[in-house]
């Protein structure tokens, strides 16, 4: 396997040896040409190519549960981690990874975050799924019951009396909750 350059722009344009690319097609029909080491972080892709002997480099793998928007987010994360791995094969510098991850999720809305969690779950990227669910937990930790219902799209099926009783019982847990 040739060592490939993970960054998407201005990299190997003039290199004579072409790096291997994997073609992935999203639910809305866009085809992404992804560097092999990056694509192989997607467990579903890795097993697809490992288990099917008749697929070739020209095979376009369909990913019907992943939108183009989610795919951009997924690849940004996987490319950054491939870059860390390539530069520091032993251990990625913890601080640099933290800084990247913090900046990475700051730009994502709650809807985008949920969409990416679904995609990471479907594509079976355990590291990313673990990271994103941790981000979701941080976002709701100090929020109100109403905020969390809206966040997850959960219907309140308590009667008003039942809910009032529960809120009384857990009154101490409602102190210091965020305003929004």
């Amino acid at each position: 396997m040739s060592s490939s350059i993970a960054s998407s722009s201005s990299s190997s344009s003039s290199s004579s040896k072409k790096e291997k690319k994997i073609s992935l097609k999203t639910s809305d029909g866009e085809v992404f040409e992804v560097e092999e080491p990056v694509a192989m972080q997607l467990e579903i892709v890795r097993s697809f190519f490992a288990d099917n002997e008749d697929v070739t480099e020209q095979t376009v793998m369909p990913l019907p549960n992943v939108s183009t928007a989610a795919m951009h987010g997924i690849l940004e994360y996987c490319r950054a981690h491939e870059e860390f791995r390539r530069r520091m094969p032993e251990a990625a510098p913890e601080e640099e990874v933290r800084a990247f991850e913090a900046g990475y999720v700051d730009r994502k809305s709650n809807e985008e975050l949920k969409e990416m969690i679904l995609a990471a779950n479907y594509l079976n990227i355990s590291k990313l799924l673990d990271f994103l669910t941790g981000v979701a937990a941080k976002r709701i930790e100090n929020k109100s019951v109403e905020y969390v219902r809206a966040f997850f799209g959960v219907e309140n099926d308590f009667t008003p009396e039942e809910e009032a009783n529960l809120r009384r019982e857990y009154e101490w847990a409602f102190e210091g909750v965020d305003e929004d």
Partner: protein
Amino acid sequence: MMNRIKQSLPDHIIFGILGRLPGKSLARFKCVCKLWYAFLSQLKFHTDDKVILSSDFLVQPVNFEASSSTIKAVQLDFPLKVRSGFKVIGSCNGLLLVIYDEGFVMWNTWTGGYERLSSLYNPAENYLDVKSYIEYYFGFGYDHSTDD
């Protein structure tokens, strides 16, 4: 513009997210809906990864993550109003037996639930006098037949 459909997460992912939250959030989120109430009410501490450290005003469960050798301490909020501090007398799977100025409390640090054990102690006695020797007399018992 992309047409983005609001998608909901499957339950196993939602519960995975909830599993990362501290007890205070979990207690509050029992009020979200019946399914969450049922799920959050049956959560228990894992027996092997928590150690409780405490002083008179502070309780810290410490998670030892064997794989990464990192130690994480989280401060817990005691659910009751306390005037003169409290002391942890015993602990078992995240269940603490606590004495404070109004008597004994069984405190489930995982769910935030608690129960006063009024029959054990007369609050008229002086708390500070009592707490100095009381820890020698109380501990946890476990009844296999009722899992209690």
